[in-house]
């Protein structure tokens, strides 16, 4: 098991904008709970940044996970909660370079 960086680009899909604010908030609450569970399982969130000005996506979110499996579990929980159906995305996984500062 080696530490991994996980980089997640996202933007809402068109039908997201057709949902009312209550429904959007309900989804966001579930996804936030998923993130909390991943934090409790040893992940750490570097942050979520706005990049719409220079990218196809709206945000980039960066996490550190203790293993590739932990990154997968985080993502699998999000997609099980309809995250991917309401957000277009692109993900990257990277292995920590040994000896790198």
């Amino acid at each position, binding site marked *: 098991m080696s530490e991994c960086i996980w980089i997640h680009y996202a933007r809402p899909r068109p039908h997201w904008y057709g949902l009312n604010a209550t429904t959007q908030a309900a989804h966001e609450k579930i996804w936030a709970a998923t993130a909390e569970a991943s934090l409790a399982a040893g992940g750490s969130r570097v942050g979520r940044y706005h990049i719409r000005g220079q990218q196809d996506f709206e945000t980039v979110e960066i996490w550190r996970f203790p293993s590739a499996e932990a990154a997968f579990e985080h993502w699998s929980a999000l997609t099980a909660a309809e995250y991917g159906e309401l957000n*277009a995305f692109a993900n990257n996984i990277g292995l920590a370079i040994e000896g790198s500062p």
Partner: protein
Amino acid sequence: MTLLTEATDVFAAAEKGGRCLVAFAAKRQPLASGVFGYDQARRLETLLQALQAEGWLMSVRAMFEPNAPADPHVFDTGFAHDVDMVGAFEAPSLSAALAGTVRLEQAGWARRFATEWLLGPREFSTVQGRGAQSDHSWGFLALWEWNDAWSAATKAKRRAYDEECDVAFKGDVALGINIAGRHRIDWASRWHHAGLWEAPSLGSVDLAMQGHEAAADFKFTTSRHYVGRLRPLADFIKPDAD
């Protein structure tokens, strides 16, 4: 793990073994003399043997016949694509897969190829093509994402779509095409799924695609397809002549 899509007549959910696809699309890089020489080629061959000893499968064929003795094989795609080869290994775990790509890159692969690695667990089991086709000298790699239209569709509409696509997949199998199941790669890619086929000919892949067009497969997916001829990986990692 939850499945991204449901099982169908053709596709059955795979046993959850934790194993991981290591697919790749690689372009040979123009190199100065000596950058990829006998040393790098030998190191890479040694590592490929070590990975096999660690439980890796080294070809699409091995996904159908895990115990068959098999040197690493890929599909030669240079005649039709901007990458020279595509292929797939299978690693014992996600961690082993990710670490394996770094080991390969460091052993010399990164000098020889610019590579898009595609990693992820198996969702559906292999599907054997009909008939006694022994010639599977062609391969096909499909990458796709479920697009906005699929994402906005109701579960009933997606189910009806899956049933339509199953007609096309049954047509593929009737053409003697072996389907190496379906893998989920969305956790570390812009693509959601990878599909790998063995086919008896380029014509059979083309006929199969016509069946998928007729089934309106691509109304709900955005796809990229590669087709190539079976070839030993060793042919691509020979050192350059001085």
